[in-house]
């Protein structure tokens, strides 16, 4: 059997590797960036397997081939892919088959551009295009052969990624596109929101996307009671469990930003242990002032830490007139046949990088429970690595014996064109 390459072409991270492997060979940011010191856009170094981030990412400009989740700049993508195939994967496309992920509802013009890229620019032998939701379902069903997702062949995949959030019911390994629902909020918008808040309140970081990404990953969490946590974030001094200081890189002693006090950052986890009472102002005002010294290349975060991920649950607060994640899930389920409802609620699979916020699943359960009928069970399955979930499903699908038959070969593409070939991925035959 020939070499099959599995490529999860995400808006933020590109996950690539060989079919049958447990983990992708490499994970790199799907972008080109230009640091201040350079005039050219260069390729970022991979985050996986070894994160040797020696680059100086301060004030770097970024170009991404993907906008709002869809491939809109094939030229840029070709650049990134050819770098990926030659240096990281070391494959030759004409001898390989490609399994590519593409979100649901890709426009015909975008699909055509992707096909041209695969067959005409790289000349792959054959291609299979799959949507992420299906792959996550396949992975989960395969990982737990006796779980509900496998026995009922049905699950609800909540993919909260870089560009947007999808809730997609999957039935018998097919994503039910008529029932899929989308919130136009993802990791990128959250990072930009945090950037906006920090820039207004303390230090101007509007051009520091990579640093704020890091801040978001390290410090943000999902609150399970916003009103209470806002109260706590108001307190002064040591009573404020939310406050945390992030030190920006200074370019001399450290080129990466870091959290000043890791223990302080974990403070909010003690909330469940202590009982909440009102603390009066103690005389710590002076110390307070000293802390937020702007000359010292650092800034404090308090309520931003949980108000940023909060926007996924309440996009209205941001001015985006869309329902929150819990309601989105309910609507996706309600769009399916009522026979599926109990099963779907019992196998909700969380995937995507934005679900990595601590307590994401707990909060979702808290919000979802009142919205669904009380005699239904609710079970939220979290993946051990939500970023790689889609890729692993792809790896499994591509190593199954029937996979070869579901691909479109280069000859078929040349004869029938893009639109007809696409039918094969949805109906199984050309």
């Amino acid at each position, binding site marked *: 059997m020939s070499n099959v390459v599995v490529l999860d072409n995400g808006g933020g991270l590109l996950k690539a590797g060989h079919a049958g492997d447990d983990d992708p060979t490499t994970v790199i940011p799907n972008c080109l960036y230009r640091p201040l010191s350079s005039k050219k856009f260069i390729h970022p170094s991979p985050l996986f397997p070894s994160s040797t981030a020696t680059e100086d990412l301060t004030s770097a400009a*970024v170009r991404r081939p993907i906008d709002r989740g869809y491939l809109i700049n094939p030229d840029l993508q070709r650049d990134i892919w050819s770098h990926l195939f030659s240096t990281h994967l070391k494959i030759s496309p004409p001898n390989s088959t490609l399994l590519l992920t593409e979100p649901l509802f890709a426009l015909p013009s975008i699909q055509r551009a992707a096909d041209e890229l695969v067959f005409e620019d790289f000349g792959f032998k054959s291609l299979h295009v799959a949507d992420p939701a299906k792959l996550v379902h396949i992975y989960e069903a395969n990982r737990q052969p006796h779980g509900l997702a496998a026995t009922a062949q049905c699950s609800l995949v909540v993919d909260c990624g870089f560009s947007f959030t999808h809730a997609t019911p999957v039935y018998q390994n097919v994503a039910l596109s008529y029932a899929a629902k989308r919130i136009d909020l993802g990791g*990128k918008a959250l990072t930009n929101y945090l950037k906006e808040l920090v820039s207004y309140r303390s230090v101007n970081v509007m051009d520091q996307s990579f640093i704020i990404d890091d801040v978001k990953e390290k410090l943000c969490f999902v609150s399970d009671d916003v009103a209470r946590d806002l109260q706590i974030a108001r307190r002064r001094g040591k009573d404020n469990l939310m406050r945390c200081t992030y030190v920006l890189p200074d370019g001399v002693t450290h080129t990466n930003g870091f959290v000043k006090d890791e223990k302080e950052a974990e403070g909010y986890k003690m909330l469940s242990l202590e009982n909440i009472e009102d603390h009066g102002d103690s005389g710590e005002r002076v110390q307070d002032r000293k802390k937020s010294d702007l000359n010292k290349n650092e800034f404090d975060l308090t309520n931003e830490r949980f108000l940023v991920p909060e926007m996924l649950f309440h996009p209205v607060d941001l001015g985006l007139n869309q329902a929150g994640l819990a309601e989105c899930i309910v609507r996706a389920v309600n769009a399916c046949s009522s026979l599926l409802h109990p099963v779907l609620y019992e196998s909700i699979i969380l995937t995507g990088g934005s679900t990595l916020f601590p307590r994401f699943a707990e909060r979702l359960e808290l919000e979802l429970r009142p919205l669904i009928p009380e005699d239904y069970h609710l079970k939220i399955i979290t993946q051990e690595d939500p970023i790689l979930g889609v890729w692993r499903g792809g790896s499994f699908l591509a190593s199954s014996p029937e996979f070869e038959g579901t691909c479109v070969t280069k000859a078929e593409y040349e004869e029938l064109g893009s639109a007809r070939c696409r039918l094969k991925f949805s109906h199984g035959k050309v």
Partner: protein
Amino acid sequence: MDDEAPNSLRRMSSRTRKVAPKMVAALASTDNRTQAALARLEALENDNAGLETVEPIDDDEASLDDDDEGYVQKKAKGTKRKTRQAKALENARKPPRNFLELLHEANLESLPPQVPSYLRAAVGPPNSTCRRHFCTVCGFASTYTCVRCGMRFCSIRCQTIHDDTRCLKFVA
């Protein structure tokens, strides 16, 4: 948001190509606050906020751009400075760069209503319309609205900061 009565008082420039599509919608709307809100949402999807001159600069890199721009490129190099016309030509020849432009081109509204599409997959407005308001200055729950721009603040202290820094910034 839907009150797009063409505002004849506003003098619209013909150079709308450079403005993001949501911005165009916002400019067509009569309500300044809606404009500000839409522009802000658009900004959240921006890759290089704060570095707005990125796109024009990297036009000089032939390696990343289309080869068929050779004519314009050569001309630009010859004169060492692009004329306005050359720039306009270059912009006109570029394929749509933005997903929203592609979406507009695909004309999904014309599909029959039972066909699932990008537009119909959007989750839609929430059932309860209650919006929580946070102070734009400090982030805590806010009780007051700025009478000039509609932004929120929670106390006199925050109001002073708001007035001094970004009141009327978008809606002047």
